[in-house]
């Protein structure tokens, strides 16, 4: 019987869960919007995953980690570092950008966390900033890359507050500024704030990895590369990194390599 482990990342916006085999491969996963009432969703999804992996130990992380039945709770900082390390097998810095918070985690050659910084107080430094304003602009996320690439010049957004920025954008549209330029400017503004968080620690060299939902936004990745002057490596299945890390912490074997191809649900 192959060793299996379940990892659950109960975030405030999305719920992620994975089943790993003994070699650390993802053999099943779930991603869905988070139910504020946590336990019913946890129970339902654990039931489903335990049918694939009966009796498998459960690692839990994220906002609701303590509400996962028989889960071993560890913070998302430790789990994201573990999940990222499993992929690169060397020290590095992980930039995780979720819906409601942004984290910078430096981990060492053994996968242990060396330093971390989080922005979770102000929406303006998180994915929420883009979500709110793009919605106001009527630009779906799928079109974002096209918009930013077609923009001649970025329209600078000076407001640091999401609410202020929204009204600033409305003024800009009213005065005839091109949507593409504004979209590009928004990405630059967010990249600038993330850069401040990044630079609040010292991360001189090494690889910079990205995870979280926002990592799926190629325009954001490009804006970050420009601002930080570093190559951003987006991890495969970037939303699952925390859940994978959580599963790895309870996996009986010591392995943790993630294969190049992602694996789908059973």
């Amino acid at each position, binding site marked *: 019987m192959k060793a299996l482990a379940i990892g659950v990342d109960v975030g405030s916006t999305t719920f992620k869960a994975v089943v790993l085999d003994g070699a650390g491969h993802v053999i099943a996963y779930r991603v869905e919007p988070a139910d504020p009432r946590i336990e019913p969703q946890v129970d339902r999804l654990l039931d489903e995953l335990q049918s694939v992996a009966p009796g498998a130990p459960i690692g839990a992380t994220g906002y609701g980690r303590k509400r996962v039945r028989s889960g071993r709770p560890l913070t998302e900082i430790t789990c994201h570092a573990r999940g990222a390390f499993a992929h690169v097998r060397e020290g590095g810095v992980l930039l995780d950008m979720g819906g409601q918070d942004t984290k910078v985690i430096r981990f060492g050659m053994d996968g242990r966390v060396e330093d971390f910084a989080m922005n979770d107080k102000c929406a303006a430094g998180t994915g929420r900033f883009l979500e709110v304003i793009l919605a106001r602009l009527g630009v779906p996320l799928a079109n974002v890359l096209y918009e930013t690439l077609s923009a001649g010049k970025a329209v600078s957004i*000076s*407001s*640091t*507050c999401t609410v*202020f920025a929204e*009204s*600033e954008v*409305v*003024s800009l549209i009213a005065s005839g500024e091109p949507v593409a330029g504004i979209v590009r400017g928004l990405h630059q503004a967010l990249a*600038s704030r993330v850069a*401040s968080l990044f*630079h*609040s620690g010292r991360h001189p060299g090494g690889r910079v990895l990205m995870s979280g939902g926002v990592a799926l936004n190629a325009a954001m990745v490009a804006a970050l590369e420009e601002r930080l002057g570093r190559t951003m490596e987006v991890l495969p299945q970037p939303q699952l990194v925390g859940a994978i890390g959580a599963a790895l912490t309870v996996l009986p074997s010591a392995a943790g390599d993630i294969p190049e191809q992602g694996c789908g649900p059973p």
Partner: protein
Amino acid sequence: MNLRRAQYELAGRLVGPLVLALESWQRRLARRPRSSRPGPFGPPLQATRKLKELMSLHYYQGRFAQGAVPVAWVTSGFPVEILRPLGFHAFYPENHAAICGVQRLVPPLSDAAEAEGYSRDLCSYARTDLGSLLAHRTPVGRIPRPDLLACCTNICQTVLYWYRALASHLKVPLVLVDAPYVYRSARPHLVSYVKEQLEELVQVAEGISGRRVEPEALVEVTARAKEGTRLWGECLAQGRHRPAPWTGIDGFFHMAPIVSLRGTESCNAYYRLLRDELVDRVRQGIGGLVEERHRLLWDNLPIWFWVRELSALLAGRGFNFVCTSYTNAWAEAGARIDPADPIGSAAQAYTHILLNQDLANRLAILGRLSRDYAVEGAVLHSDRSCKPYSVGQIDLKERLARELGIRVLLLEADHSDPRAFSAEQGESRLTAFMESFG
């Protein structure tokens, strides 16, 4: 050293003026013909050109100061009269930060300071200055490195921490004049504490400059400083007339010499020129605005990165800031200065400047200004960066409205960081305020 000294003097007296004249001539050649569309503002002040020359010259000369003369970086409220007889070139980080504010350079400079670990919740002047130092970036060409940092806490205690950070980065001596706050009236031991520190200052400054303070020279500089504040007061007083011959925003810019060049003859000569022009405009009935409909008071520092927009927004509806507590503070600072007792009177004068005295005093001054300048309303700038000025404004607003029967707006912004201000919201608040006048 002598060569550098010669260069410094030459820069100030000959080369500088020539360079400025050349730049000015080039600008005139490049200028497009002035549009004939009438605006809300009256004719611009002639003196402004001279102001620009004066301040540009000061900064230009500053480029040659390092190694030529002793250089001091000074807080705005510092008794600089004591340093002038020793030949110090005085550089004002606050003035430099204001320039950065006007030119909207604060965000990148602040980023450099924040990367070093300075919080964005700190005063934007401090972040600008430290950021400028760390990023080696300035809009004024070259800033001379100081031989001495001179800090007086009569404007706030933040300057103490700020200048200590500078001392650590620059590795130069810091002279601190701790001027404790005046509740009600200053007890004698408070003034003598300040005086003792000024005497210590003299010793340190003499050591650095390698000269002794000549008593007559100190008397002369003190007399000039007193005269400078008096002249500045005369300029401001012209605002009492209807229409006021200039705008409050003009006042913020023309304030630079009394802060940065206090005690020099060029400062006083400039204010005589400005006063004469203002008096002349009053005589001819020329106003800062073409049509002055409502007169306002402004409290706290200006919003440097938004001055022109603010001025235009108000002028468009005939509103003028005919007086401000900030510009007025520099006119009143000289009242206690006495050339017969330079150090003793400096201790009194610099302990009693506006921000070092209690709110009862502040309220009285705001009330007096409002009456003397016949204002109908006031805008209190709730400056995120300036606690000494902003703490108490909510109560002051209510008291002013109640006791003077004027309309008062509290406007949340920052004096130099545009990231702490929403222009859209600011504009709508001011517009609503103006509309309330009917």
